[in-house]
């Protein structure tokens, strides 16, 4: 159990490229923190700095309040799942998982090792494969072996580098809940790198979003979703992503491609200098007006394409972006690893909606839910700090409660186990 503190961490590789740039992050004891960001943004590098495999160019890394910059990896007592697994090919699955236990000389006898490995392997469904060599396993099985090797030992913190990326959807979902439950039960501080939106949103107490080595925002999933600090975070979190629409500023009205939206005086003052700003509206904030029940701004547009998924449906509505914001949107698309698709509005509609391709659709949305971004800096001009603090407090409370619940469950089962043992002793 340990807290991890990153203070202005910088990593420059030999070629002077700053892979991690001035990252500061406090990870509380027992917290589950997710690192996300596009490929090459420095997630693995940051993890490897924490575990001690990369030298820290500048800044301080504290574990439990002690500076560990110069400590060797084995003295940090952290365990890690590598992005490429790094299994020991000459050892069986059993020995791979047992490896860290065997290294801790004299701490575990053979029986203990056997039971610990078996416990890990049954959680990871590796029991049939214990005597096989990594070369003969599938990618997903190898990944689970790497996972087993990391969790078998009582490390102060777990560092996972995309540990589920190679599993199929079903196993991934299963493992996700397994990891979440295990983390709550053990209360082990965890840093988890992922590309997967669902993992990022469901697993973490807090999510840290990185872009080109720079930390953008650290917050609970809900805060990231509802109160992103900038265009990048807004576009990165959520699937399908937030719609970014060019908005011409005319007094206290924003002219969006399909509709004019009135804005508050406060906001109008903030954006006075700009000719254009970028409005961000999540796909599910649009509703089919014909179903009723929603107040807000109404407009109609021709739907180009629809996708019906059973529980919901997506509608695509293309629009033209004016030159002035085109470059910002294009750059954002590049930053987000986008495919440079043409500009279109994605609308997530109720499955009951009868809107069909080629038809004119009547849509409605609540302008309160719209975010407005500065097109130059990308800053979110409509972020509600009070609300953000409230969400943060909520999720922190939820985290403590979950930990508390897990601990009391643990102690109940411990006590029961103790009573069982005592009972059997009396009986004998």
């Amino acid at each position, binding site marked *: 159990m340990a807290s991890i503190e990153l203070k202005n961490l910088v990593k420059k590789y030999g070629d002077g490229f700053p892979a991690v740039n001035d990252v500061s992050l406090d990870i509380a004891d027992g917290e589950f923190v997710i690192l996300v960001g596009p490929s090459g943004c420095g997630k693995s590098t940051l993890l490897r700095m924490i*575990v*001690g*495999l990369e030298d820290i160019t500048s800044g301080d890394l504290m574990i439990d309040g002690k500076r560990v910059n110069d400590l*060797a*990896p*084995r003295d940090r*007592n*952290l*365990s*890690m799942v*590598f*992005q*490429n*697994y*790094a*299994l*020991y*090919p*000459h050892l069986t699955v059993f020995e791979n998982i047992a*490896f*860290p236990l065997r*290294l*801790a000389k004299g701490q575990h006898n053979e029986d203990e090792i056997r039971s610990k490995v078996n416990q890990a392997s049954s959680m990871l469904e590796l029991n049939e494969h214990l005597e096989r*060599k*990594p*070369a*003969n*396993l599938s*990618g997903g099985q*190898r990944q689970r072996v790497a996972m087993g*090797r990391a969790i078998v*030992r009582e490390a102060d913190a777990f560092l996972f580098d995309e540990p589920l990326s*190679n599993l199929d959807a079903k196993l991934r979902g299963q493992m996700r809940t397994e990891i979440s439950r295990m983390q709550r039960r053990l209360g082990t501080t965890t840093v988890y790198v992922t590309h997967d939106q669902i993992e990022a949103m469901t697993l973490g107490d807090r999510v840290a979003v990185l872009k080109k080595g720079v930390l953008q925002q650290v917050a609970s999933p809900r805060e990231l979703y509802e109160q992103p600090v900038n265009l990048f975070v807004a576009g990165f979190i959520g699937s399908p992503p937030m719609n970014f629409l060019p908005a011409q500023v005319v007094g206290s009205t924003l002219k969006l491609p399909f509709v004019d939206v009135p804005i508050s005086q406060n906001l109008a003052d903030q954006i006075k200098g700009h000719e254009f700003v970028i409005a961000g509206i999540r796909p599910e904030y649009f509703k089919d007006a014909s179903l009723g029940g929603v107040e807000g701004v109404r407009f109609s547009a021709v739907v180009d394409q629809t996708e019906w998924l059973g529980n919901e449906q997506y509608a695509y509505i293309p629009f033209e972006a004016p030159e002035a914001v085109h470059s910002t949107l294009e750059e954002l698309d590049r930053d987000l690893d986008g495919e440079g698709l043409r500009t279109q509005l994605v609308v997530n509609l109720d499955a009951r909606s009868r809107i069909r391709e080629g038809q004119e659709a009547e849509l409605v949305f609540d302008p309160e839910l719209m975010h407005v971004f500065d097109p130059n800096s990308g800053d979110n001009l409509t972020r509600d700090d009070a609300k953000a603090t409230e969400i943060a407090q909520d999720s922190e409370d939820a985290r403590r409660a979950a930990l508390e619940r897990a601990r009391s469950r643990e102690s109940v089962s411990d006590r029961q186990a103790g009573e069982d043992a005592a009972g059997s002793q009396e009986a004998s």
Partner: protein
Amino acid sequence: MQTNLSTKTRNWMAVASIPVMIWTAIPLLWILATSLKGTDALADPTKNSFGNFWPKDPTLENYRVIFTGGASDLFNPALRNSIIVCLVATLISVILAMFCAYAISRLDFPGKKLILTTALAVSFFPVIAMVTPLFNLWRQVGLFDTIPGLIIPYLALTLPLSIWTLSAFFQQIPWEMEQAAQVDGATSWQAFRKVIAPLAAPGVFTTAIIAFFTAWNDFVFSSNLTSSNNSRTVPAALAFFTGASQFTQPTGAIAAAAVIVTIPVVILVLLFQRRIVAGLTSGAVKG
């Protein structure tokens, strides 16, 4: 190894390999045949079948000559010297090369390139160019005609070779292996012993065999830096074989000795062949 060659290509390759096999096998067979020929069969083609190739009346006479007969006091010590010198030289060179190659492939230090190029340059040197200075030096420092006096030059021959092959092997082992071991709580030495060494074993065996052969087959150093049975190895000793009389050539005895010295080589290859398994590191990392 798995190949996806079509049957046709495979057949063609089999056919093409036959001349190669004949080309390499015939001289060896010829030596074997010669070693089985008696003195008269060596002189008289009519006593042999297949056109002077195989003796009609094979005899082990030549083997008797080198082990117990006239050539034995030349051959037996030479065989002993060969074995000692080559084993010791191989051992030292592989151990030194292992540390050197490990450092070269794993650590970043100034002069890394220099070591590799120097090693390569040394092995480019014609051996004969080193012999004369060594001859003079060895006589002065008292290493002439001693076993260490041969081991040292053999190290010069085998070390560069071993360093190169081993660093290539070490470089194939993914770095992450070792990092994973360190994160799991291993010291650098434990990581080397428990993870890197087992993975590098095939490379080490291959290197050892190559180094052993290089030393085993050397003639130039052995013939120039030795003067007696103290340290002379088999290739050099062969040159000192004499016939039964002044007028007979020791062809049969030389052939028999050549067959005998080939045996350890064959044994070594058969023994280690199974250890030289390619692709041992597969499955370690993704992709």
